[in-house]
């Protein structure tokens, strides 16, 4: 297993290199020019050209790419064109809020979606099942920003229980940290909860029809034991898969959620960087996301072996 994990980690390096080359090439050929944005609307073409030169944007593609790779190999993600700050600093500033939001959303999803899916499967065909699946369809259909606005309206403006926006680091207290994340996590988690609940129900229904479940019932085992010990463990592979894949959804959803709730996370940094053509920042974030995605896939594969002993690598 250890050698498998090491092999997978080593295999991420060429994947990331290809992603890096792809992203760099894409940005190079894409229209738009950071020098134009920097110079402002009233700047002359000569001013814009001077800024391009000072940023090295007038150099040939291969030189720019080579220079970037060289710095990367030395652990340097480069410097933001706009802020003049290291990309690693910018990502470091934004990592905390995004990670916090994703962790809370993930926990919320597992705590809410898995039991809902199990109960729906257990009560398949009943009103409860239909209500849960109806909720799932509803949650799946609503855009994140609509849920976000409604939550902010009800819980922040009407009830005044929670703040509308912002982020407080965890080192300033657990509650201040959590209270800023509750509404965004619910908004972001709605689609995710719906997805996981539906997959859990489908997987559980399949397992509940197996002979060993019938045997367990015949032995007189309680419903809880049957559902959460025997059935859920055997239905876990597709659930784990969809939770893992969902992390990619979270990254995409975080862009909108961070904007609606003014959370200074990586999602907002990405959008800002793209709109300004801040190439080093975009490249740094894409590399980070690629790495995270590869790691998540690895963790899913490893988790398979834990929930299903028949799987070996």
């Amino acid at each position: 297993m250890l050698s498998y994990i090491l092999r997978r980690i080593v295999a991420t390096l060429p994947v990331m290199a290809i992603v890096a080359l792809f992203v760099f090439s894409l940005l190079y050929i894409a229209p738009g020019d950071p020098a134009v944005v920097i110079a402002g609307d009233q700047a002359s073409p000569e001013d814009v050209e001077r800024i391009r030169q000072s940023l090295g944007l007038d150099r040939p593609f291969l030189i720019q790419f080579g220079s970037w790779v060289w710095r990367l190999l030395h652990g340097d993600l480069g410097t933001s064109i706009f802020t003049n700050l290291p990309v690693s600093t910018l990502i470091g500033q934004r990592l905390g809020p995004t990670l916090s939001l994703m962790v809370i959303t993930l926990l919320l999803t597992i705590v809410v979606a898995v039991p809902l899916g199990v109960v729906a499967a257990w009560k398949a065909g009943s009103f409860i099942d239909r209500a849960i699946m109806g909720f799932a369809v509803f949650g799946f259909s609503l855009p994140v920003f609509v849920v976000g606005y409604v939550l902010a309206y009800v819980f922040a403006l009407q009830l005044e229980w929670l703040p509308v926006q912002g982020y407080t680091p965890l080192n300033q207290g657990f509650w201040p940290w959590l209270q800023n994340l509750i509404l965004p996590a619910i908004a972001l988690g709605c689609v995710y909860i719906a997805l996981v609940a539906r997959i859990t129900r489908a997987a559980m229904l399949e397992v509940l029809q197996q002979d060993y479940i019938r045997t367990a019932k015949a032995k007189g085992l309680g419903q809880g034991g049957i559902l959460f010990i025997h059935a859920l463990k055997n239905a876990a592979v597709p659930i784990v898969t969809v939770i893992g894949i969902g992390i990619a959804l979270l990254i995409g959803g975080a862009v909108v959620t961070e904007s609606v709730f003014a959370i200074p996370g990586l999602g907002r940094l990405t959008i800002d960087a793209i709109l300004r053509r801040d190439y080093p920042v975009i490249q740094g974030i894409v590399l980070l996301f690629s790495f995270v995605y590869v790691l998540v896939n690895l963790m899913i594969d490893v988790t398979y072996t834990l929930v299903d002993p028949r799987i070996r690598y």
Partner: protein
Amino acid sequence: MDRRTVLKGLAGASGLALTGGLSAPAIAQGASARTLRFVPQANLANFDPIWGTQYVVRNAAALVWDTLYGVDSSLVPQRQMVESEEVTDDGMTWTFKLRSGLKFHDGEPVLSKDVVASLNRWAARDPMGLMLKAIQQELTAVDDRTFKWVLKQPFPKMLYALAKNNSPCAFIMPERIAQTDPFKQISDYVGSGPMKFATGEWVPGAKAVFEKFTDYAPRQEKASWLAGGKQILVDRVEWVVMPDPATAAAALQNGEIDWWENPIADLVPVLKNNKNINVDIGDPLGNIGSFRMNFLYPPFNDVRARRAVLMAMSQEDYMRALVGDDDTLWKPLPGFFTPGTPLYTEMGGEILMGKRDLDAAKKLLAESGYSGQPVTCLVAQDQPITKAMGDVTADLLKKLGMNVDFVATDWGTVGARRALKTPPGQGGWNMFHTWHAGADCINPAPYTAIRANGDKAWFGWPTSAGTEKEVTSWFEAKNLDEEKAAIGRLNKAAMDDVVYAPTGFFLSYTAWRKNVSGVTKGPLPFFWGVSKTA
């Protein structure tokens, strides 16, 4: 359902709820009355007001760096860091003396050598600075508090150049910082102004913090725009970037922020209904909407085609697309200069007045030789102002019988593409949309868009000898009457040659909570004199 609809609906509902008495302090509220939380118009993505000239950078820089002179609300330059100035009778030697007691944020005194270095860096990037540089004989420090600017010919607008509020302003930095190449960004933000930049708390794209500089020596006069006593009455000003207008509106209602620089028109009724919030016009100098036509290629290389567009266009259509039904926010503009300012004129603007004549415009367009070739119209749809104007223009051109190649893209792309002088079919363009701050259109000095000197002009590269002649006349004018006469002739020449198409004059609101006082109208948010109670 789109995002804007949801935003309006929910914000409207929240407004009703709040006017119903649900405006008690939120759990999240509780920041100190010594901290003013402000939502700026845009993200402060960099912080060098000479290198990057976006308005938001200029606005933040006005807190951190002081200027030698500052324009007041009457648009008159007033002494700021300067104690006195002398100019020789021939108008060619200016000698300035700094006020005593001026300090930088690192405790060092402000000296003439700092001023000289700062002016050199500024002059390399500013249009008026470049004019000064072109006629400069020497700019030297005479002693610690005196410096001298010797010119080869008189420059009557010297004090205005040093006082103006359009970007880049002549901010005074320490010599070691000001010696940075003007095309490279500074990373040391030691300033001369009333507030210090808290570098360690800067999260670009999210938050910028300014702290009161206790050693700042304000002037004794009453503050007026960039002039007078810049008294800071709070300890901290926090700029909180909020890209989503609905979030900013909700945060203002909830008391999580104190001042929102420019609420969008859709949400203003909600804010006006809230008993805890003041809403008023932010900048009386407003903005001038515009689209520019490319003088280099058909059809707009022919003045008849440009005039045809002006004859057919309705400024009301443009303005309603921008500001909706609020008639207090716009006015027609048959000219190029900012309404309500001393040089405003409508001379020669008849083509934009009265009933629109589509038939006559079509006839004139045909006379220009237009034969149905595609007209490439660039529109930055990530900016609500340009998007709204672009939609109106597309409709206008179609009504005129033109074949519109509507390129809806983002500002970064429009900004890069508009600089191309290649033909429209080869990556170039025929027209693009933008707007100008009214503060930049009060006279020709900061008004890049009105220049019509061909290759050296702004994008579109208009050529109009009459316009350029009157720009020179204005610079040489000895008094206000001469200036007004020159600007009248300039306006007519620019309108005859259609240097660009003004789409109207529009204003925008600013909103702040009622426990904040001292907010004034101006071309940028002024924080001096602003205080807050708990």
